């Protein structure tokens, strides 16, 4: 009970700010009679949101966008990790592969997206590939940095035990890279949602991006805002899932904060 009270006290100020913000917004729209096709009032957004879910199509479209974002993110991250590991374990590869990766990165994905839709069609595949492409780079770069940023004494210790490069990877480089990897994943998950929407903008008949285009064409700005809300909830949800995985995987990175007397994880 007291835990709940403490939680409420901690949330009180942010909640108050939120209420003031929404209330102020509503007051300005009503007070200055702003046209609803320019900026909708929060109440109109809520109505649009409820209607969207009641009609039953928001959930399905949100599912499609989330699926594309998550699968593309997983694919891109897996590729990023794999390339980083190969390049660090076989340094000769780095000079061959890396220029292509950088070249690919300098091309804006928005510019390639139409091409990918031409190649892979209007379905989910093209969006998953766009998402994978945007997720790849932050994961790759961070993972490479983490695999390389190992302490020389730890390397010497393993070398003194005649460790193979795979043992050095497993016992030192990989765990050492995890905090870096999660930094990359946190960036990539945000990029992933953007990538999915961009893919849907270019050509699709499903997903939140598709609905946003439709609402825009119909000048239904309240629905557009309602879809922004759906998107941010999706983004926050994906981000917090990632955060909780990170807390589990990087428990040793936080033990300092836990302080003395903390019971170690089993």
């Amino acid at each position: 009970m007291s835990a709940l009270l403490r939680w409420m006290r901690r949330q009180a100020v942010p909640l108050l700010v939120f209420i003031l913000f929404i209330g102020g917004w509503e007051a300005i729209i009503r007070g200055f009679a702003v046209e609803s096709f320019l900026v909708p009032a929060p109440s109109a957004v809520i109505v649009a949101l409820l209607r969207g879910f009641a009609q039953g199509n928001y959930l399905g479209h949100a599912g499609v966008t989330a699926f594309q974002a998550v699968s593309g993110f997983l694919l891109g991250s897996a590729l990023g990790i794999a390339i980083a590991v190969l390049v660090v374990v076989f340094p000769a590869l780095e000079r061959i592969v890396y220029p292509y990766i950088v070249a690919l990165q300098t091309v804006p994905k928005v510019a390639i997206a139409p091409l990918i839709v031409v190649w892979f069609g209007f379905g989910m595949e093209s969006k998953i590939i766009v998402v994978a492409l945007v997720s790849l780079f932050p994961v790759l770069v961070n993972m490479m940095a983490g695999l390389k940023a190992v302490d020389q004494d730890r390397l010497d210790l393993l070398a003194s035990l005649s460790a193979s490069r795979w043992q050095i990877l497993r016992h030192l480089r990989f765990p050492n890279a995890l905090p870096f990897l999660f930094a990359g994943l946190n960036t990539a998950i945000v990029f992933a949602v953007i990538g999915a929407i961009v893919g849907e903008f270019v050509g699709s008949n499903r997903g939140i991006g598709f609905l946003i285009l439709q609402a825009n064409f119909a000048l239904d700005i309240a629905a557009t805002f309602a879809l922004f809300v759906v998107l941010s909830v999706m983004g926050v949800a994906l981000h917090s899932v990632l955060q909780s995985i990170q807390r589990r995987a990087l428990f040793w990175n936080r033990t300092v904060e836990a302080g003395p007397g903390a019971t170690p994880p089993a």
Partner: protein
Amino acid sequence: MPRQSSGARVAPEDCGAAALSIRDVGMVYGAGAGAVEALSGITLDIAAGEFVAVVGPSGCGKSTLLKLVTGLRRPSRGNILLQGRRVEGPRSDVGIVFQSPVLFPWRTVLDNVLLPIEVLKLPKARYRDRAMELLELVGLERFAAHYPAELSGGMQQRASIARALVQDAPVLIMDEPFGALDAMTREQMNLELQRIWQAQRKTVVFITHSIAEAVFLADRVVVMSPRPGRILEVIVNPMPRLRSLDDMLVPDFADQVRHVRSLLGGKGAEL
């Protein structure tokens, strides 16, 4: 000149054969104008079970000597024999303790101690008990399941000593292992190290820049010159074991410390 204060510690077959034999070793880093001569003409025989301390000003090549003896680097000239076999690369018959604990933060203390066993592909299950005994020896048995970040600096260094002992290598090399600890913890660790050395019967090469620490711990103190490191003198310390901190107050001890300090030119180390 094998020291023979306690005959029991030197097995008959070891007579004459040193545990570690360093023969006219020289080390030059780099080449051409930028070459750095770190060590020159080092010759030293260390008997099995002996505790030898190496003191010298910083930059005189002490850590270089560790890298050569452990096979992490090859000497530019000369030979090193460990257990009678020439050192040509890393070997599992020598344990290392570095200046910093060099623990792996994602492993528990016990798993850190068992790391050499995993890397050497020895049966981990069989070494578990030994690892626990070693943790008991260094006073960390209650912290086996803890992570390094939960331990103080002294405790972390004790864990790293347990790790260096786990594969039961006959030779232990320590590179300024207590340099980062405060004076009181350091004295405590010196006492414990003496006890551990007696219990485990290892040959120890102990690198330090503290003269008092060297004299307190060692059977022989090797005093080195500034770069390029050469051996200035090897001083035998006949004080009986186990030594206590009070032994540091006897005139003999003070004489030895004074002698080493005069060799080092009265600088470069604290008492």
